[in-house]
């Protein structure tokens, strides 16, 4: 298997640049940049005291923040290397860090072990509870997630508690209560990043409720905060695509080719509008998925399913990817791509997990309910040997 995957598509064409002044690579920031200096100071602290867990946790945290802000997994690898020096006796902070890094790689079980160990050391760690809640939400274990939300309330983290509860309610068929919880948290939120996050989620909830005008207002309020945020841009782009407004996606995401999920949405809009850059962007995505596969990375399967479904028109492969992704992640977007792929592939059995999820949670998005109903009306499959060309 891995042999086949690894038929290295290295389009090897090494070249010698024309002159010494030729720029061959741009770095994320200048050495004199304040962030670069802050990072260098943290590194120096670790170098000076290699056994200092506090210094290591601070450096790892800084790397992880950078990974989140810039969407660059290299920083996650750096954080991982810092933390792994302390694998024998990690402090509570390093345990949380390691759990975060593990969930990043979708090793949810291992991450839960780390968060449990963190709380055994220090039961007041709200971040460990919050991360656990987030993992349970992804795994569709809503009772467990509710317990983590309750713990956040006990620790008086009201904004976090509101976000946590709002998501559990949204995913379990109580969109109106979810809206109220998130709205309440918004009134308590003191910082722009909190507001941005809550507004984004409010936008999603309104979109599920079919209240497009309100959804748009929340998304626009979030954008008006003026912070770069990949998740917000993706959610807003999805809203625009769902409402047949691809031209706005083009303007929104023109400068975001570096991010795979945003490039995916951009390429969808371009394909709908048949622009000249569509083909090159679809190819770029293909190359990036191939590169991820080469290194054995399977964390992109939800996006890849959508790519195969909408841009490559290969619903059979899309179903496989969506099902594989569903085994790990079970949030609304994961279920939606599964339903859409199953419908396109006329595979009613593949849609069953999604139908079951909708039934058991009572999730209220009318678009998904309609998709699910359509998968039940698919023709009974006929015996049809598929002969490869």
């Amino acid at each position, binding site marked *: 298997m891995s*042999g086949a995957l690894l038929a*290295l598509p290295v389009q*090897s064409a090494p070249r*010698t640049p024309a002159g010494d002044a030729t720029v061959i*690579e741009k770095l994320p920031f200048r050495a004199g940049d304040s962030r670069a200096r802050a990072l260098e100071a943290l590194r120096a602290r670790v170098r000076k005291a290699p056994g200092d867990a506090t210094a290591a946790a601070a450096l790892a945290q800084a790397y992880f923040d950078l990974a989140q802000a810039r969407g660059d997994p290299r920083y996650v690898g750096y954080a991982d290397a810092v933390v792994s020096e302390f694998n024998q006796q990690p402090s509570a902070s390093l345990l949380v860090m390691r759990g975060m890094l593990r969930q990043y790689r979708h090793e949810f079980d291992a991450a839960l072990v780390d968060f449990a160990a963190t709380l055994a050391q220090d039961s007041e760690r709200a971040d460990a509870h919050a991360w656990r809640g987030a993992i349970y939400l992804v795994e569709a274990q809503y009772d467990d997630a509710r317990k983590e939300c309750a713990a956040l309330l006990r620790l008086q983290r009201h*904004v976090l508690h509101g976000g946590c509860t709002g998501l559990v309610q949204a995913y379990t068929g109580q969109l109106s209560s979810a809206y109220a919880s998130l709205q309440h948290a918004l009134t308590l939120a003191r910082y722009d990043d*909190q507001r941005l996050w*809550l507004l984004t989620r409010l936008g999603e909830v309104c979109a599920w409720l079919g209240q497009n005008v309100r959804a748009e207002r929340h998304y626009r309020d979030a954008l008006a905060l003026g912070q770069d945020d990949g998740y917000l841009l993706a959610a807003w782009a999805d809203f625009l695509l769902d409402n047949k407004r691809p031209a706005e996606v083009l303007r929104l995401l023109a400068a975001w080719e570096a991010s795979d*999920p945003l490039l995916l949405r951009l390429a969808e809009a371009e394909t709908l509008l048949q622009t000249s850059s569509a083909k090159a962007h679809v190819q770029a995505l293909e190359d990036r998925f191939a590169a991820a596969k080469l290194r054995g990375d399977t964390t992109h399967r939800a996006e890849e399913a959508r790519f195969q479904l909408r841009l490559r028109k290969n619903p059979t492969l899309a179903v496989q990817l969506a099902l594989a992704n569903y085994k790990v992640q079970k949030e609304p977007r994961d279920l939606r791509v599964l339903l859409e792929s199953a419908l396109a592939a006329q595979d009613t059995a593949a849609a069953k997990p999604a139908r079951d999820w909708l039934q058991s949670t009572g999730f209220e998005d009318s678009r998904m309910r309609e998709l699910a109903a359509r998968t039940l009306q698919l023709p009974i499959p006929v015996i049809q040997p598929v002969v490869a060309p």
Partner: protein
Amino acid sequence: MMRQFALLLAIFLCQMTAWAHKASDSYLVVDVKGNAVAAQWDIAVRDIDFALGLDRDGNAEITWGELRSRQSDVSAWALSRLALTRGGICPLQVTGLQVDEHTDGSYAVLHLSGVCPGAKGALGLQYRLLFDLDQLHRGLLRLSLDGDMYNTVLSPTSGTEQFGSKQASRWDQFSRYVVEGVWHIWIGFDHILFLLSLLLPSVLVLHLRRWQGVKSFGSAAREVLWVVTSFTAAHSITLSLAALGLVSLPSWLVETVIALSVVLVAANNLRPVVEQRRWLVAFGFGLIHGFGFASVLSELGLPADALVLSLFGFNVGVEMGQMAIVAGFLPLAYLLRNTRVYLNGVFILGSWLTMLVALVWLLERAFDLKLVSA
């Protein structure tokens, strides 16, 4: 406090995980012929900068000059993190430096060459580039060893990889698939029940609508041989066609028909319709059982460089597993063939039980139900 608090909210964005470029990889292509080593190693310029610091003027741009002037540092750093052995350590040197593009940016291309002490036997490779700084870094190795291709992802847990000489590796691959084949017939209860249901009457003969034991061991063995051989021939054909990707059937259909085949064969023992040419039944349903084996094999995966050999190995394994079942079954059944234990207990009751079990499978698979929890 603010940072901490703000971060906490980002937590619920943990889907952000997979957002963005890929993590760090290097591409290592190695060609070993006898004692001569030639290699090309593509390392991301950003990674070299992170490890060694290339941006001398601090303007966040790496120029060709900045990389080229550090060639000896880069070479020493890279070579200290790669070791090849064949009959001893193969000293390597960098013979050229160029650049290339991959999906996530610019790469320095190191051309390497070296001579190993030995020209034969296994090649050892140890890779440690960047692991001290970046635990997500991977080395993507493509190795040609005396013409044989190997592809591997090198990670911090890989340690020293051994790439065998030709005979050993081919043999290893072959025997691995033989073992898998044996294992999968043994854990495939539907295949075993199908085969046994077909074999149960082979030590019997229908005489005046009553079953009785056959006269000679020879005629029972002949019957068994025919049945097993045609089952084998049939499932080898479809297994090969499916494994090579030439034909594919939906798995629910395959599984349903396999269950149906067991029901029918068991029912035929109780109410004989086909008595003489059971080998034809074995052949017909064997075709569909082959698709069942193929789905196992597709989970297992076939190595691209030894596709036919591994497929053959898997077939051989399935065969050996079957033969073991037959070897256990036939002498015992022959000895007991005229006893009531065999005629009523094993043959009649066994066929009834088999049919019931297979009926449950059939319903479960055809209607996607879960009647009996596994």
